[in-house]
């Protein structure tokens, strides 16, 4: 894939006093990618995003947006970015239309394109009906959507969204997710979130930040493969017969979780059909036979809860 590299971050460091918030983070974002940044609270996600959006100066490191160095030529680099911070930067005293028109002017959208740009952003974020209302009187979810509209208004190459679905209802979350996927086709998107299924639903790549360091970086396909299970969970009415199950071809070993429950480990092909046939033949009475999936949540917990530094390094 020869997609354009939209963001390249090299060895980013950020100190707050003596506290090291972001340590040696490097990554790239290509066109057509949706990058999910995960991490526990205070891991350095927001700091990283603030640095990429030019709101915070890095202590060391280099950020290039669409090939333009953010520190050398901030104006041109910033023109390529749409940024939604944790708290949407909306003026409560303005109406949605006034606010978006002002944002368009700030982002140097030409006069002729300003109207269509505002209309388009409003329509995409489901704001068409509230254009004339004061932002301060809108609900949190609508304010969040105004924030997203502001970020995509000027059609930037890169959209950075810090927890975009906070405060939205389930329907809006679905809308925003599909909006993100849609945007992801033509733009590069970085989004941070605490909601793990969101990452699985929207992102093409996942990075986990823990204590300021990048501890996990994989594409969604790699992750899927990693998460593909090699364990079957079996529960029957009659006590399990370990020796008989072990004889089924494909099963490497059996871990009994009680008389009637067991975990069957296999390597290549899923032997579920053979297991089912065996259980039926032996008259054990099948209650449950399922793949024991490892979820992103488990990966996340594994990486961010362990205090062992070697675990983090292995994963990275």
């Amino acid at each position, binding site marked *: 894939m020869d997609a354009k590299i939209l963001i390249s971050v090299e060895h980013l460091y950020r100190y707050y006093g003596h506290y090291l918030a972001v340590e040696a983070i490097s990554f790239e974002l290509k066109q057509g990618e949706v990058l999910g940044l995960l991490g526990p609270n205070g891991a350095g996600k927001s700091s990283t995003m603030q640095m990429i959006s*030019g709101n*915070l100066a890095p202590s060391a490191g280099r950020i290039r947006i669409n090939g333009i160095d953010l520190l050398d030529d901030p*104006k041109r680099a*910033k023109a390529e970015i749409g940024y939604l911070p944790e708290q949407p*930067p909306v003026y409560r005293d303005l109406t949605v239309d006034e606010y978006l028109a002002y944002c368009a002017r*700030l982002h140097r959208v030409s006069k002729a394109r300003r109207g269509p740009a505002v209309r388009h952003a409003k329509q995409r974020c489901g704001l068409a009906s509230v254009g004339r209302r004061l932002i301060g009187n809108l609900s949190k979810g609508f304010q969040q959507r105004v924030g997203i509209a502001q970020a995509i208004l000027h059609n930037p190459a890169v959209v950075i969204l810090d927890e975009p679905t906070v405060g939205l209802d389930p329907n809006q979350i679905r809308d925003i997710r599909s909006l993100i996927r849609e945007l992801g086709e033509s733009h590069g998107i970085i989004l941070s979130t605490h909601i793990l299924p969101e990452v699985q639903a929207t992102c093409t790549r996942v990075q986990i930040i823990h204590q300021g360091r990048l501890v996990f970086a994989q594409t969604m396909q790699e992750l899927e493969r990693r998460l593909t299970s090699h364990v079957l969970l079996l529960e029957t009415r009659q006590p399990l017969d370990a020796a008989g199950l072990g004889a089924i071809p494909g099963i490497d070993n059996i871990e009994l979780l009680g008389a009637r429950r067991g975990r069957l480990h296999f390597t290549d092909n899923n032997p579920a059909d053979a297991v089912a046939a065996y259980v039926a033949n032996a008259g054990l009475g099948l209650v449950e036979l399922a793949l024991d999936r490892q979820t992103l949540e488990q990966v996340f917990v594994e990486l961010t809860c362990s205090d062992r530094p070697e675990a983090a390094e292995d994963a990275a």
Partner: protein
Amino acid sequence: MIFTIALRELKNLFLSPLAWAILAVVQLIMAYLFLSQLDTFMLLQPRLAGIEGAPGVTDIVVAPVLQTVGFLLLLVAPAITMRVFSDEKRNRTLTLLLSAPVSMSEIVLGKFLGVTLFFMLLLLMLAAMPLSLYAGTHLDAGKLAAGLLGLALLLASFAAVGIFMSALTEQPVIAAISSFGLLLLLWIVDWSGAGREEVTGLFHYLSLQTHLESFLKGLFSTADLAYYLLLIATFLVLSIRRLDQQRLTG
């Protein structure tokens, strides 16, 4: 880009009742001052008529009123400037400006221009009163123009100082109190007349008031103009530095 920000700032001021209230209150007090000063002039006029080269209506009515209005605006200006940056920081809306393709100087200049435009509007309304004297008498147009120019420069200085103080803190009230304190100090700094010659000279130069006085006398000197321009430039540069530094320290 500067004008976009300035216009927004000006419009934002009028969205809150504060700006309207200030316009109304200042206008009212100015009217009272103006009328009482006019009264004094009416009393003095018969005696003045006999004196050769006596001070005219511009000196007796307009100059003192403008002088008092200058001080009055010193009390009021911090209320206008206090919210410029502190509110944006508090509501986290400064992010919008910082992530837009706009430089820090453009942001500060835009805000300064917006606030100054508001002050000029205020000044225009105040100028209407002395101008109304044209209906009945002759005014010294040069003196009036110099006085208004002096007041305009003074107001622009108030704006620059207030904006800097607002960039320092997230609390509008603290910004108001500290810009009021600094402005008042600059106003009264030459009152310490008892010191040595060179010290009082310095204090005399630093004072906001002395430079306004020469404008009110109808004296347009580049030294006074330079004083105000330097003051404005200093505080605008300090504001830019302050905001840049905030980006560094987070």
